[in-house]
């Protein structure tokens, strides 16, 4: 009897082992990819960030400790691009506000909802390079759409959108809001449709007005979506690069349009400061890690869920 139980157990574990070996084989490709193209590069970046490495000289022979980091933190260009990156993030609350307002409008529509959603989403699926080229043309000082419109309406010549240190930031914010708006609309719309209608009906019977419904039902119940959009936009906001390179080429007048990633790219691939660039990359990774961690910590405080 006991003998039997033992053999049975042995058989099960034999089968489990067989399953395990197959499963490991099945996940081998993504895992090897992870090791080669993620884990190894991250380790490499951290190591190289301590070296004055150019890609041509010796990596290990030019170790300088934290000197790269010290140089970055005292480089005015770094801080300028950091501040610009943060200024661009003004677009995030604007996009979230517009996104929620439009989603609430779409939620009222029955027959035209899908059509409108599709239209609003077109910029999101459009090639970032192509629409950056398009908007560089829209923002063109002499012949662009925007300045032609301003001239037609007011008679005065509009600002030098991409050439001016101040207006280039406004232009970028307009562009990014336009490009990303469809994303928040879709997410908010899905969130709104998830709120049970009874909640509103019950509150209406209790005599709540439209603003109270919005403030006490919609806002709290939609907060997980708000939170999700906020995190992903912040993380995305720290990675802005393509539109800056396409629209301004060199980072704008006096580097006024450059972002962190633009700075990183510039140092690494235009100046061959690969070690230095790696240090910028590590700082970027730390910032993004910190935001994610902080956001998840703050999540319990202001995000309310249905149960």
């Amino acid at each position, binding site marked *: 009897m006991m003998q039997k139980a033992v053999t049975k157990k042995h058989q099960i574990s034999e089968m489990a082992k067989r399953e395990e070996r197959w499963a490991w084989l099945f996940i081998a490709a993504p895992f090897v*990819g992870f090791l080669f193209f993620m884990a190894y590069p991250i380790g490499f970046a951290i190591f190289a960030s301590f070296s004055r490495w150019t890609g041509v000289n010796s990596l290990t022979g030019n170790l300088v400790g934290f000197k790269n980091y010290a140089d970055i933190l005292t480089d005015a260009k770094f801080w300028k691009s950091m501040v610009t990156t943060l200024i661009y993030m003004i677009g995030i609350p604007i996009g979230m506000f517009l996104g929620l307002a439009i989603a609430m409008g779409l939620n*009222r529509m029955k027959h035209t909802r899908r059509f409108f959603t599709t239209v609003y989403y077109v910029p999101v699926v459009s090639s970032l390079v192509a629409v950056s080229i398009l908007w560089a043309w829209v923002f063109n000082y002499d012949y662009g*759409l925007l300045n032609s419109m301003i001239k037609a309406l007011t008679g005065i010549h509009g600002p030098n959108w991409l050439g001016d240190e101040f207006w280039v930031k406004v232009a970028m914010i307009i562009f990014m809001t336009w490009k990303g708006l469809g994303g928040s609309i879709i*997410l908010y719309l899905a969130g709104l449709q998830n709120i049970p209608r009874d909640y509103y009906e019950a509150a209406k019977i209790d005599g709540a007005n439209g603003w109270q419904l919005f403030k006490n039902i919609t806002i709290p119940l939609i907060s997980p979506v708000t939170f999700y*959009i906020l995190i992903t936009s912040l993380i995305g906001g720290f990675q802005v690069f393509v539109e800056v390179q396409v629209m301004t080429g060199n980072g704008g007048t006096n580097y006024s349009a450059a972002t962190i990633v633009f700075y990183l790219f510039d140092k690494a691939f235009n100046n061959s400061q690969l070690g230095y*660039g790696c240090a910028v990359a590590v700082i970027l990774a730390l910032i993004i890690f910190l935001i*994610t961690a902080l956001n998840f910590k703050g999540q319990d405080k202001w995000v309310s869920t249905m149960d």
Partner: protein
Amino acid sequence: MKQRKDLSDHYMKSKKQKIGDVVVFILLAIGAVAMIFPLIYMVATSFMTKNQILSGTLTLFPDPILIGKYREVLSKGQFISGIFNTVKVEIPVLLFGGFTSSLAAFAFAKMNFRGKNAFFMALLATIMIPFAVVMIPQYVLFTKLGWTNSLLPLIIPGCFGNVSMIFFLRQNLYSIPNELMDAAKLDGCGYFGTYFRVFLPLMKGALGTQLMLWFMGIWNDYLAPTIFLRSEKNWTLQVVIRSFNSYYAIQSDYALIMAASVIAMIPTLLLFFIFQRIIIESIAISGIK
């Protein structure tokens, strides 16, 4: 008397609501026009003469309509090779990457093995790491491997699978009952057979949607190709249109630039219009987990 007031209240409300709906509709329509207007302007510009473009007055209707710029773009060798290079990246990546991703998703969702969670978390962590962080070491790695004179830096990593795809397919597989696994076992299906003959057909829809999104991602990718493709003959479409932009803007040939950009946008937009319901749904799901 009271009843009458209630009735009129009700009547008023629905009338108020109707007016509200009309106002909202008009606002949404204005917004939609504003969103789509730059794209219309782009198409319009691509058909205009240089004189009309540089007149500085606000015009939307090309007069006369010229299609010559499209012909000019399509006769440029660099543009055509950009399309071919992009396709050369798409096909192997979607084929092999789709296979490895779905196979791994199957293992994570339906099989038991030690280290399952640890492996999964390790993969998931990579979604959080921006490409900008690893682009320098990857560039160095690909240079050392001698890949930067070919399309391999864009092809090989993709063939190892795509983490967000694994994540979504795993979620999708959870909704398929585990009993199918045991049934397949009883039928003498091996693990690979169970994946290939039972579960792969069942996740066809989800796999198709994910492959479509991945196709768009590869088609529109710019940063990785700019860094990794050292020789012009390997440039993908996005790199080509960006170089057109810098080259022809000096000559003020905006019609050509716009025509090239319009063509570059057509494949993804076409896919989007055909499958908009599925694409929008799968994106909405990602927000409400």
